[in-house]
């Protein structure tokens, strides 16, 4: 579709929906707060609004339509359709969060049961489902760490947080925002975070270690318990970023490695849909000593009824409105219930099998490599360094060309510690045939890069739009973050 910007579809006087008339006397607003000019919103009939968005949806590559193994670290898996039905049911969709407890026993029970299941999956004591996302859960964990140390009179002393370069950027960013100095460990020759660097970093100023494992490289750090011990040894807390938990469900847990806190992303490991980038849902798990600091209220059960406990004086308070992203809690609950313990283990094993199978196929492509050997769990950060040196084609160019074949492809977070990186994570949802096809696409593009590098650099050829010139996006004189700004700067 060559679909215009929605403002270009507007025609005065048209309407997309009717609104109830007041049916009671009108109220005159004082001039000071009365809107003067009507907002320049589009004026369209209902079909035309719908058609516009249906066309845009068709120009969007969700899990439901593609082989979504190309967005590594995102754990793109199948989100069962049946779970969406529970969420659109009015008995979830039309619940107000301030309803009396007797009218929401069902949803409270789901929260309560979900918390117990995630506690078992992590081995930790309690879990808050309030955070809005993985990053929000990281911030929640930092806030609890801060409150914990403050409660012990060490709030000012402990002003450093240690993380690693292959942990998600939010670990560093949230710690910084919470007022901490951030120390980032670089990988050693094996691809693990450098334990010597950690030894040098820990001390009385250490508030916490925030670490992912397996890291974004897909490599599991076998000395993780030592990391935790080192931090504990100086009185710090250890916080496990389990955004990438998909490969280890039922295999190993935060508790066994000694962590005090962890978080999960329900929209990754636990299948809730990614929704174009949220709403997501995070879950923060804590060991017993951190329970008093959990966000409130918590959901409790007295053997007969479920209720909210807001009387938590040491709590860090609210991290969002109400209890959590309920829709995703419901979906994730249903997903776990459909799988059970054995199913979750199959998820993990198959995700890891798929990843290793895909790695096996990718590494057969000339020009592709994976630094630090082949030991990977659920994802791999690969490199096109050789291909780039041979052809001058960047990983980013390859990704754009891959779009012509109807698949995603992601390089990595900045900085590109792995040169010409790309990150694939197949999860358990894709079939062998899917993996074969994805590898074949990359092999095909790599071959194109060798035979006709300029062709690859000129991609896309098969997308809605052609190659974008991004220079204006960083130029304040030209950037147009809204149509209003675009009209002002470029059309008038």
């Amino acid at each position, binding site marked *: 579709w060559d679909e215009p910007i929605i403002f270009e579809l507007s025609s005065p006087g048209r309407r997309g929906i009717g609104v109830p008339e007041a049916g009671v006397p009108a109220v005159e607003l004082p001039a000071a707060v009365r809107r003067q000019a009507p907002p320049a919103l589009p004026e369209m009939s209902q079909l035309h609004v719908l058609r516009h968005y249906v066309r845009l949806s068709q120009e969007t590559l969700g899990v439901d339509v593609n082989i979504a193994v190309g967005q590594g670290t995102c754990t793109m898996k199948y989100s069962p359709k049946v779970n969406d039905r529970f969420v659109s049911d009015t008995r979830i969709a039309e619940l107000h969060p301030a309803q009396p407890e007797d009218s929401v026993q069902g949803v409270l029970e789901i929260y309560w049961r979900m918390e117990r299941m995630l506690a078992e999956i992590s081995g930790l004591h309690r879990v808050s489902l309030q955070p809005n996302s993985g990053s929000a859960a990281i911030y929640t964990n930092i806030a609890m760490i801060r409150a914990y140390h403050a409660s012990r009179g060490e709030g000012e002393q402990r002003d450093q947080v240690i993380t690693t370069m292959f942990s998600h950027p939010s670990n560093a960013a949230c710690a910084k925002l919470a007022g901490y100095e951030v120390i980032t460990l670089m990988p050693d020759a094996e691809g693990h975070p450098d334990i010597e660097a950690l030894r040098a970093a820990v001390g009385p100023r250490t508030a916490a270690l925030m670490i992912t494992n397996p890291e974004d490289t897909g490599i599991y750090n076998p000395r993780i318990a030592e990391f935790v011990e080192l931090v504990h040894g100086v009185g710090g807390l250890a916080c496990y970023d389990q955004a990438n938990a998909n490969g280890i469900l039922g295999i190993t847990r935060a508790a066994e490695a000694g962590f005090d806190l962890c978080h999960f992303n329900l929209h990754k490991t636990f299948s809730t849909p990614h929704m*174009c980038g949220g709403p997501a849902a995070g879950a923060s798990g804590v060991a017993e000593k951190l329970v008093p600091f959990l966000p409130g209220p918590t959901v409790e059960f007295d053997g007969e009824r479920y209720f909210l406990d807001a009387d938590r004086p040491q709590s860090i308070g609210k991290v969002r409105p109400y209890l959590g992203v309920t829709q995703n809690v419901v979906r994730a609950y249903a997903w776990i219930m459909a799988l059970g313990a054995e199913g979750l283990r199959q998820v993990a094993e198959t995700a890891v099998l798929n990843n290793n199978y895909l790695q096996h196929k990718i590494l057969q492509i000339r020009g592709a490599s994976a630094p630090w050997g082949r030991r990977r769990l659920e994802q791999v950060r690969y490199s096109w360094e050789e291909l780039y040196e041979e052809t001058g084609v960047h990983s980013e160019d390859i990704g754009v060309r891959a779009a012509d074949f109807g698949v995603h492809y992601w390089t990595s977070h900045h900085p590109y510690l792995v040169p010409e990186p790309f990150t694939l994570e197949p999860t358990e949802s894709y079939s062998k045939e899917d993996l074969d096809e994805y590898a074949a696409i990359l092999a095909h593009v790599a071959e194109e890069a060798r035979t006709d590098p300029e062709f690859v650099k000129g991609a896309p050829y098969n997308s809605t739009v052609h190659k974008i010139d991004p220079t204006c996006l960083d130029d304040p004189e030209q950037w147009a973050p809204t149509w209003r700004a675009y009209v002002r700067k470029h059309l008038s």
Partner: protein
Amino acid sequence: MTHPYIPNAEPAVRAEMLAAIGVESVEDFYADIPAALRLNRPLDLPAPITSEHELVRHMGALLGRNTDTTEALSFLGGGCYPHHVPAVCDEVNSRGEFLTAYAGEPYEDHGRFQAIFEYVSMMAELLEMDVVNVPTYDGFQASGTALRMAARYTGRRTVLVTAAIGADKLSKLHDFLAPDIEITMIPVTETGEAAAFTVDDTVAAVYLEYPNAYGVVETRMAEIAELAHARGALLVVSADPIALGVLAPPATLGADIVCGDIQSLGMHQSYGGGHAGYIATRDEPRLVAEFPSRLFGIAPTAVPGEYGFGDVFYDRTSFALREEGKEWVGTAASLWGITAGVYLALMGPEGMRELGETVLARTRYAMDELGAVPGVRVLHPEGVHFREFAVEVGDADALLTALRAHDIFAGVRLDAGTLLVCVTERHSKDDIDTLVRAVREVRG
């Protein structure tokens, strides 16, 4: 049975893949995980429900223990509002392509980029501001970030916050602005508006809500903006966009940063799961530089006249700079942004105006009718109210319980004697009369 969600769990396929890789078993892949860290037992979880029908029954039984606001008559608001959700909003946001897309690039996900760009653009028209972010989590987060943006922009560490703010939101602000920003409260007068206050050179921002936590519309905003600007502070306003079909956009009254929640614009209440936050500013590079969120912008392509999209000023985010970026950015609430865009496109300027007028009129009607019940006192009756008002009812818990028996959720409890009552376009005159009748009855 091979689980329907795990195609390669099928034993023959699994064996074929292992053989292709050249390993004996999946266990080989886990060699890096030390034995001491292994969980050597199955997880202790409920038995799986492997048939879809039984799962539906199981969930249906749980859902059956809820009574929702289409079954009871609800006047609950206080941050989560029962506006009508157009069917087209649900249709668009349940399209599998949007529902299951994530963080693709502009070529694979052109439609997602455009839909979000259009959302921010429609919000920009409603707000009369040029820069609007890709949604953040919720209105709480938006306020927290807007205040942090003001602090970074001004280099100052105090914010003056209206006391007409919800307790939960204030709790979030306290946690989020700690340790480096101090909050001072602006008291509220008998009219429900911000009382007089002074601004000094340490103040980064004055923060108001519009309408505020009592449903009152601040009418002295332009004056307050001048007061703040005179001392180099910014005016930050949290505004519910649903009201802006009739209320003047805060930017036209002098606000520098406008923020809020878009749940009203097409999201279901969903037990608090329908929230998303917006932050808007003028197109001033120094202010734009303080956004932690992604901003999407139009860019030309190789074909003249074609619109491509991309990230505006990416090198301020934590994706690009880790701890040197502004706050953090992650998965937030994009689909609710797309939905709000659909909502605004359906409503158009006229729809937004009509809706605003209906809500204003019905709110006032409810205030007048409830206020006429003996023993009920409407607070701030002189104020301009949009959608909400507080009432003193004596024993709030007793009243709520009594009305619950009439299948009425009468309002959000503010304190032992006060309720916050919410009226939207979904509440017909009959609904309001039903509430008033019930209150009379249970108090009679």
